């Protein structure tokens, strides 16, 4: 049931949007986006894909003649519906009318003070739309699959679910019948099931109304489901472009290939192949190909000059001198060797755990009747939507949430659910790594301090020994030791998450609880972090409880999986078993909705 484009783009010769020679830069100097040309046919969906810092959002905003504070559009000529427009504030009247925008976070994109119908009517009013505004607005709600009753139309954004909010955003964007809609990560904040529905909706709207769309995302899997064409951006430039199926099947740019190899997939679980190095920042871009420093097929020519975006036929273009050498994507199936030995005692045993939240209305059950074991060196995944209780379970095991029933046993010893009642050794043994590494690190402590502290407190190391240990651990998580002197704010997201892991390792734990540790990271960084965790449990025999909503990640790292629904485990089993043959309808629904790149280009592998 996933939304798949069934009809080809309605191309009639005139571009809905075309931009050429787009250059956007910081007021302070360096270019953020350079040499970008985009042509979008009517009713076409272009996936604009890139990781953070690639310039994809800057490009998307520039298409509306908008640049954020401190950013300027330097050059570029834009035609909308065949008419040239200046890419500046003079575009105001075209915005919303000819080209409109849907932003990433629907919860923040809607004015909390306006009823949703007013939000739509505001746009209609701004563009002098004819007819009864209320009627049009109500019709728009209907168009995006929402109720069009007056009662619903008079709701405020906070009275809607995330999915409904995003539909309202889309309704606003479509209300003046634009030729092009720019969607900036429109489903990133939504759960997979809602995401799947929104994607389906977008395709339907395109089919019915012939609206062209630029779909900006970091997630190749998502875009593979809906895009007609995909443009991959790296370091401010488009490095590869082409029809979706062909591009995904035979990536020609080594970056595209690396990106695909980094995506964990639940349909075809495979060993991730992280790209070396990290993306270059704005202003640090080398002369020549920006990807050259990370590229396995680099030659001297690559670093001499920036390669041009070369047409290679089949509607494809690639910015690589050696694109012909790029090897085909390979999928190394994941061979999961059981790391736990039979007969070994479990590291962690949770029995009949029950936890509640206290709210103003009273107690709300967060998790009930949770029982599971983790063997030393094993990885157990807890999967569920946000609010399913998975984080509460992790916090209870870490001693941060008081349980109201059940027992937690670590290596045969019963654990109190209150951290302060645990012995130092018990506290050392269980470490928690958080979703958002930026929040978890004290911004006033250097990275070295952050890592050395648990080593001192929980392992009793001396000052110099703990600093030495911090340097060792930084190397262990593949960060240069000099990073120890830096502050968290000076690091990238991936670096911070590695620091978070290093800090957990400083305690020499037996069990690491990973709470959505990769969900804030780019896929290529995620791949590297997942690889690191895999390596750690191999080498150190650490047990992992891995909490995630991403089934692809589960498929990649977990030996066992438990699916949580409304605080209860609805399905559990060996990972392959659960993912291949889901029994519970909830698991089935999750799997069906989860985006995948598997099978793109061949018609066989679509999920569903």
């Amino acid at each position, binding site marked *: 049931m996933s939304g798949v484009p069934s009809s080809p783009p309605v191309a009639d010769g005139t571009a809905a949007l075309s931009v050429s020679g787009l250059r956007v830069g910081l007021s302070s100097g360096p270019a953020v986006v350079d040499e970008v040309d985009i042509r979008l046919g009517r009713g076409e969906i272009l996936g604009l894909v890139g990781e953070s810092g690639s310039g994809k959002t800057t490009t998307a905003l520039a298409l509306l003649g908008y640049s954020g504070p401190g950013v300027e559009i330097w050059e570029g000529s834009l035609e909308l519906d065949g008419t040239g427009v200046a890419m500046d504030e003079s575009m105001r009247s075209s915005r919303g009318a000819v080209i409109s*925008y849907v*932003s990433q976070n629907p919860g923040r994109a809607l*004015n909390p003070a306006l009823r949703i119908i007013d939000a739509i009517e*505001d746009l209609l009013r701004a563009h002098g739309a004819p007819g009864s505004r209320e009627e049009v607005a109500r019709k728009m709600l209907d168009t995006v699959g929402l109720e069009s009753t007056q*009662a619903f139309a008079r709701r405020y954004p906070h009275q*809607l679910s995330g999915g409904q909010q995003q539909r309202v955003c889309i309704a606003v964007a479509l209300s003046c019948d634009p030729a092009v809609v720019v969607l900036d990560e429109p489903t990133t904040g939504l759960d997979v099931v809602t995401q799947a529905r929104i994607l389906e*909706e977008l395709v339907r709207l395109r089919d019915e109304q012939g609206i062209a769309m630029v779909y900006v995302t970091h997630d190749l899997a998502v875009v593979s489901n809906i895009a007609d064409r995909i443009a991959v951006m790296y370091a401010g430039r488009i490095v590869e472009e082409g029809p979706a199926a062909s591009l995904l099947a035979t990536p020609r740019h080594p970056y595209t290939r690396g990106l695909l190899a980094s995506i964990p997939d639940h349909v075809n679980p495979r060993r991730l192949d992280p790209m070396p190095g990290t993306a270059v920042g704005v202003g640090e871009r080398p002369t020549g190909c920006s990807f050259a420093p990370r590229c396995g097929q680099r030659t001297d020519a690559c670093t001499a000059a920036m390669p041009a975006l070369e047409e290679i036929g089949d509607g494809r273009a690639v910015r690589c001198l050696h694109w012909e050498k790029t090897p085909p994507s390979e999928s190394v199936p994941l061979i999961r060797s059981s790391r736990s030995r039979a007969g070994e005692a479990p590291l962690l045993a949770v029995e009949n755990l029950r936890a509640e939240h206290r709210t103003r209305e009273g107690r709300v059950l*967060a998790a009930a009747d949770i029982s599971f074991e983790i063997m030393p060196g094993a990885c157990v995944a807890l999967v569920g939507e946000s609010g399913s209780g998975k984080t509460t379970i992790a916090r209870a095991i870490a001693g941060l949430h008081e349980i109201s029933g059940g027992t937690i046993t670590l290596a045969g010893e019963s654990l109190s659910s209150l951290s302060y009642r645990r012995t130092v050794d018990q506290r050392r043994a269980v470490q928690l790594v958080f979703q958002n590494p930026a929040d978890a690190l004290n911004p006033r402590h250097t990275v070295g301090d952050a890592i050395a502290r648990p080593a001192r407190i929980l392992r009793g190391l001396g000052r110099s020994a703990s600093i030495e240990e911090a340097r060792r651990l930084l190397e262990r998580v593949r960060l240069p030791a000099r990073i120890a002197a830096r502050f968290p704010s000076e690091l990238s997201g991936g670096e911070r998450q590695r620091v978070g892991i290093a800090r957990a390792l400083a305690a020499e734990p037996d069990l690491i609880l990973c709470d959505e540790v990769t969900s804030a990271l780019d896929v290529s960084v995620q791949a590297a972090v997942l690889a690191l965790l895999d390596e750690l449990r191999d080498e150190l025999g650490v047990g992992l409880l891995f909490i995630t909503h991403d089934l692809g990640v589960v498929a990649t790292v977990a030996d066992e999986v438990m699916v949580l629904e409304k605080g209860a485990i609805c399905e559990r089993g060996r990972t392959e078993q659960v993912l291949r043959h889901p029994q519970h309808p*909830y698991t089935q629904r999750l799997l069906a909705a989860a985006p995948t790149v598997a099978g793109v280009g061949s018609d066989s592998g679509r999920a569903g």
Partner: protein
Amino acid sequence: MNAELEQDPLAPVGVAAPPAARVPRGSHPVLRFLLRRCAVGFLTLAAVSVILFAATNILPGDVAQTVLGKEATPERVAALRSELHLNESVVARYGHWVEGLVQGNLGDSAVQVAQNAPDPSVGSMIATPLVNSLILALIASILIIPLALVLGTIAALRAGKSTDYAVSYGSLILGSLPEFVVGTFLILLFFNELDLYPPVALVPPGASPLDNPEALVLPLLTLLAASLPFGARQVRAGVVESLKEDYVTVARLGGIPERRVLSRYALRNALPASIQAFAQTIQYLFGGIIVVEAVFAYPGLGNLLTNAVLTRDVTLVLAIALVIAAVFVVINIVADLLVVFLVPKLRTGLK
């Protein structure tokens, strides 16, 4: 695809389902909120009254002695003690006082009783000054709110530019000067130098301060100088924050005219925070009014309070303090109510 299906396919435990249950149910929740806030305000006042009463009645010595001075003859002290019910216990006196309050009687001025004044009731002494002060405060508020909104918004829009610095630092300097310094400076400038406005705001008996609006110019300017900066800075902060919000960018990208984006998107959402700031500003204004009234000899509550303190008229001080506390409570309730009206999330969340 329909909305019902999506409403909460996987509604997690502990997360209340957002839909229909939260649709506003007429004005009743707001009324209930108002009543609740009034009840809280009433309790606040009750607590304040206890504290004030205790502070003025459990002092060493007693009220009669304090009012009459140490030279008063024992007979006079005794007479006044009985007139003021000082022979009864503190609790009983508090009871009498509260009983009077409930009937709208703020009590008698101890000094006036001691003076054998024919009408010693505090109510009749307070009425005119209170109205005068409220007039001053009201005009000041009416001026401050739009000015703060305009200046704050301008500063926010020009954040980091010279206009912003001018407004921000100018207001910081102005706001940090005590009222009497500003007042005296304004008198020097507008009266002594330019001879534009009178330096005092006397109100003849039976007249209204509004009869001679010219005289109100300098007191109002002084109040403005003292209070506007705080308000403007709060508005600036609020607008700067809301300008960063996604919905402002999205509105701009939707082609909504900038003026409308500012008013309906940025300012509209900065307003609730600003209203709290305005409530504080107006409360602060009441503090400033006491000084300003002295500088400009304006016959308001501040002047009366000064008089009451100087004559050690404890019951009058008590009554004025209570009236000011009541004004503060009312301002807070009004502010809360406005915020609730302006923030749909709060309004619809009312039960």
